[in-house]
């Protein structure tokens, strides 16, 4: 059965995977701040920021094409906001929003794709993220696995009975698909309940324990410094290019 690629990617063995989760999260936040504070007038050159997360993705040996495609999932949502603000802030600002959103998603993917969820959660909590929020994220992530698996089972079962969800639109098919969706969520909820009971039975008390203690080393500090320097350098280049092109 297919499972989320992110989970597989996060268990790699590159130097990026070995970094402390807190360093990667801190680096991501600093990168996002630099991106956010780059003026929208630089819309033509904002895509240059992608160089940093792309370099990380390649270094982590994550399939680049898949990562670029994954990150594009953010664009439909960003496009809505971009369209809404065209009348008030102009086209350049809207394009800048789209570029910043995509680059931010790519940078987040570079972190999530190199950090197993338990370590990521611990890192977030260590840096002060609300425990409840982190817990919800962990459960949601696990729930997505269950829903995905349930969907695959049901798709196979439907195909075995001659159904083809990809065929021409028919009202009957839509109705069947709607019923299947409802059944899928109901069964996934049931499985999620079973998983939660299994967790309680093994002493779960609201916090996912970390199997390996993490230690912040000089390498982690060096990484954060590298991200800051690289981000600011790219920003400098973008500002210069923008000035030259005006």
């Amino acid at each position, binding site marked *: 059965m297919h*499972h989320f690629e992110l989970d597989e990617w996060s268990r790699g063995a590159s130097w990026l995977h070995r970094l402390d989760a807190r360093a990667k999260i801190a680096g991501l936040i600093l990168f996002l701040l630099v991106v956010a504070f780059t003026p929208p007038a630089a819309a033509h050159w904002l895509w240059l920021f992608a160089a940093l997360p792309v370099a990380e993705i390649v270094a982590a040996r994550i399939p680049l094409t898949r990562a670029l495609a994954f990150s594009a999932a953010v664009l439909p949502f960003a496009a809505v906001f971009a369209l809404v603000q065209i009348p008030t802030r102009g086209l350049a600002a809207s394009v800048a929003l789209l570029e910043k959103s995509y680059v931010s998603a790519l940078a987040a993917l570079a972190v999530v794709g190199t950090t197993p969820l338990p370590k990521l959660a611990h890192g977030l909590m260590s840096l002060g993220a609300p425990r409840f929020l982190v817990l919800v994220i962990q459960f949601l992530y*696990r729930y997505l696995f269950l829903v995905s698996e349930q969907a695959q089972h049901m798709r196979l079962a439907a195909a075995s009975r001659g159904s083809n969800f990809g065929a021409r639109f028919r009202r009957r098919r839509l109705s069947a698909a709607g019923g299947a969706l409802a059944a899928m969520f109901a069964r996934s909820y049931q499985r999620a309940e079973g*998983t939660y009971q*299994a967790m309680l039975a093994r*002493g779960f008390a609201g916090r996912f324990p970390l199997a390996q203690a993490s230690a912040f080393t000089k390498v982690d500090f060096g990484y954060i410094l590298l991200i800051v320097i690289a981000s600011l350098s790219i920003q400098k280049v973008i500002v210069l290019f923008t000035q030259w092109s005006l």
Partner: protein
Amino acid sequence: MVPLIEIRNLHFRYPDGTKVLSGIDFQLYEGETVAVLGPNGSGKTTFLLHLNGLLQGEGEVRICGMTVSKDNLAAIRRRVGVLFQDPNEQLFMPTVLEDVAFGPLNLGMAPPEALERARQALAQVGLAGLEQKAPYHLSEGEKRRAALAGVLAMEPQILVLDEPTTFLDPPGQKDLLSLLKTLPQAKVVVTHQTSVAASIARRAVFFQNGRIIDSGPVRQILERHDWFPPD
């Protein structure tokens, strides 16, 4: 001898009003294996969920001398290890080793000790070498063993097994039963398979409509209730 599990007059009704257990009395002694038999919907799984406090009905449930209550669930769950029917619901960490170490870590063990306990448990169930594998890459038999290792790593005094041989092929069932017979813990085994009951347990209880209507030697129970006695 003080029983490890002592249940008196247990009643349970789900929030929607469905009465599932009516006046259950049950004991389990050290070193004993009891098979829990009965038709679908007779209350076996609901009964099982009372043994580690996942459900709490009316009546008395005592585990290792402690009355099950909200205040001592951690201590109860340390002593009662439950292997649920679907191993996929029990394996939720990125690697097998982290999954098996989940229980010991929740008990407050330091990570190096918890990981060592997990490795020992994996070796005990014959899965040494698969520590770094993702649980969803395991075969059904391996998942079952990994789930069992996750329970054994907590070193419980009592094992509760819900249909332990489901999804397993005959060789897998044979291997698992052989393994279970080597474990010293007292066991409660819910099963529909008469061969499993006869193989692993001496005593059985028979559930029907939320009550235990019979108990005694396994073969006697199987014959009395026409449950396809083994050859």
